[in-house]
C-alpha cells in the first residue's frame, strides 16, 4: 500500500483546466429555436415533464426547465426536426432556478375560418409544404373547422 507514495497522483486538473467529456455524453439539452416548430413530440416523451407546452394567445411557449430535466435524451430521439439535442455542457450551476429555463415562443397561426389560434405558424407551413398544392388550404384551417369544409377540398381535388 505504501507503493502509492511512489506512484503518480491521479487527481485531475479540473477546475483549473477544462474537462474532457466523452463523445455521446448526455449534457445540457439545447433547443434550436430556428428549427423548433412547437409540435410537442418531445413534451409527450419527456418522463419528468421538464419540457412543457403552453399557449398565451399569440405565442406557443415550449419551455425547458433544466432543474427538472433528467438528461435522458428522449427528446432528442423523438424530435422530427432535430431541433433539440444534448450537448456536452455540464457546468450548469446557477444561483437562481430562473436561469435554468429555456423558452421558445413561437407565433401561433390563426384559423382562416374562425380566427382561433390552433398551431404554430411554422408547423402549419411545414404541413402545408407537405400537402399537394390543391389541398394546401386545409393546413391553414383549425382541426375543428377542417372537418366541416374538407369535403369541398376533397371534391375540389377530384375535379
Amino acid at each position: 500500500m505504501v507503493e502509492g507514495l511512489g506512484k503518480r497522483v491521479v487527481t485531475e486538473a479540473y477546475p483549473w483546466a477544462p474537462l474532457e467529456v466523452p463523445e455521446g455524453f448526455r449534457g445540457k439539452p439545447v433547443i434550436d429555436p430556428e428549427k423548433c416548430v412547437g409540435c410537442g413530440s418531445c413534451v409527450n416523451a419527456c418522463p419528468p415533464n421538464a419540457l412543457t407546452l403552453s399557449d398565451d394567445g399569440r405565442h406557443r411557449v415550449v419551455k425547458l426547465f433544466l432543474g427538472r430535466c433528467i438528461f435522458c435524451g428522449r427528446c432528442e430521439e423523438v424530435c422530427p426536426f432535430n431541433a433539440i439535442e444534448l450537448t456536452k455542457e455540464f457546468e450548469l450551476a446557477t444561483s437562481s432556478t430562473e436561469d435554468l429555463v429555456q423558452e421558445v415562443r413561437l407565433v401561433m397561426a390563426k384559423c382562416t375560418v374562425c380566427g382561433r389560434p390552433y398551431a404554430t405558424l411554422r408547423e402549419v407551413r411545414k404541413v402545408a409544404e407537405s400537402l399537394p398544392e390543391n389541398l394546401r388550404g386545409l393546413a391553414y384551417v383549425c382541426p375543428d373547422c377542417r372537418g366541416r369544409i374538407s369535403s369541398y377540398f376533397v371534391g375540389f381535388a377530384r375535379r
Partner: protein
Amino acid sequence: MRRASGSEVLGRVVETLKRLGAESVTVTQEGVVLSTVTKDRLRDFVRALIREYGESLRHSTCMGTDLRPVRGSFSVTHVLALDGLRLYLLVETEAFGNRPKVPSLTPLLPAANWAEREARDLLGIEFEGHPEPVKLILPDPWPEGVFPLRKDYPYNKKLYETPAQVRGVRGEPRFFSAKPSPPSESVREGCALIPVGPYHPALHEPEYYELYVEGERIVEARYRGFFVHRGMEKLAESRMTINQVPFLAERICGICGYTHACAYCQAVEAAARIEVPERALYIRSILLEIERLHSHILWFGVAFHMLGFDTGFMAMWRIREEVMRVAEALTGNRKTYGMNLVGGVRRDIDEGKASLVLRMLESVEGEFRRFCDSVLSMREVVERVKEVGVLTREDARRLGAVGPHARASGLGIDVRVDHPYAAYRFVDVNVAVRDSCDVLARILVRYDEVIESVRLIRELLKNMPKGELMAEYGDLPPLRVGLGATEAPRGEDIHLVITGRGNKLYRWRPRAPSYVNLATVPTMLEGERLANAPIIIASIDPCFSCTDHVVVVDLRTGVRRRMNLLRNALTRG
C-alpha cells in the same frame, strides 16, 4: 443432475398445483406459473406447497392490485420462488368490498411480512391473521382510510397542498410531533440510547436506527426506515407511458438503477410477448455486469471507510473511477445509463467502445486484486470483521435474504443462474458461496463476484452477435401479467407488471433486494459492540432508496417487537 428438462419439470409442477387445489393454472411466460386460489383456500394451498417443496420455497414478494374498474375486486398476488426448479409461482387470490380481507401468509412465510403490510397501507387490503397489522409505508401524518394506490386516488394529490397547511397547532409544524420512534416501552434500566440517523455519516441516506447500548454493547436494535417513499408506482400507473417508466425505474436507485430498468423492461416484454434481439440482450448483460462492478467496488470503499480505513476507501474509489468513465463513454452518463426501452436498447457497443471496456477490465482487475489481497492479509482488518454480524443459514432462509448477503450465509441462490435472463442464458455464471455467515464472508463473496464480473464481461463481449438493437412491436395487449427478475448487485430484484390500455401500465410492483435484506439487520446487531454497528449495517450493502420507493414504518412499533413476533411466527409455523 438437479435439473430435469424444463418442460418435464413444468408439467409436474402444474400437475402438483392442480392437485393441491388451484382453481386455474396457467403458464404466463417462460418459468412463471400463475395459479388462482379462492381466498378461503389460500392458506391451505400455501401450506401444502410448503409441505411439497420444503426448504426450496422462498417468499419473494406480493403485489396487491385495485382491479375494481375491471373486475370489481382487489387481487393479491404472491410471488413464490422455486430457485432449484427455475420457476416463479404466482399465487393470485381475489377479495371484494371496500375493505377487502384476505388471509395473511406471514404466519407461514415470515418473509411476507413487509410486503403484506405494504399492500395494506397503499390499497387498504386487510390481511387476516397478520401478526402485526400496523402502518408500514406511508408517512406518519398520513390520514387513516386513504389509500394512494387505489385507482380513485389522484396521483398528484399531495399530503399537504399548501405550505401553510404544514403548520399545525402551537406554531410548530404538525410533523414535528411525530418522533421517529415511540418513547420505548421496554428500554432497560441503565441503557443509553444511541440514535443512528436519520442523518448519520455512516448512512448516506436518511434512515433511522435506534441502538440501545450498555457501555459499548448493543442490547437492542430498532430500525425505522422508509424515508424515501416517493410514490413511484402510482406515477408509473397514471402519469407515464410504458417507455417513460424505464427512466423512472432507473431512479429507484442511483447505484443499481440499470438493473431495475432491465427488470421492468423484461416484465413488460414478457407480458406483451416481445422478442428482444439477441445483441440487445448481450448489451444489457454487459452493462449489468459493469454496474455490478462499480457497485461492488463502491461497497468495498464504503466498508473500508466504516472500518476507518480511509486509504482503502480512496484506493477503491480510484479504481472505480475507471469503471465510471467507461460507463459514461458507453451510455452518456456515469450513473443513469438510460439505455433501456421496452423491446431493446438505445445505443450500441461498437468495436471502439468494446476495446475501451477491455482496457478498463485489464487495469481494474489487476489493481483491485492487488489492493484487496494486501488488505485481506492484514490481521487488523480481518480481526475486525471475522465472526462479526453473524446471520445463520437458517435465519437467512427464513427471513428471505437474497444476493451476496444470502450467499455469504451459505445459500447458493443467484437469479442469473436460477432464472436466467438477458444474455445469461448463453454464458455460465459461477456463483460465489461462503458459509462462515459473518461480515468477512460477505467481503469475500463480493470479492469473488468482482473477479467473476470481469470474466463475464470479457466473455459476453467476445460472443456478442451482430444484429438489431430494438424489437418492433405494436400496442400492448391489456391486462396481461408479466414478471421480470434480475440479479442486482445486492440480490434478487423482481418487477411485476399488469399492462393497461393505451400503452400504459395498469399496475407495477418493483421489489428491490435490500427490502428483504434489511429485515435481517436487527438480528445481526443485537449483542454486538457499538463500534461494529456501521460495518454490520453496511455489510448487507443496504440501499435504502431501493427499498423505500414504497414504504415507511409506523412509529408505534419498534423493530424489537417485530422481530419477536417474527420469531414467534417461526416457532409456530
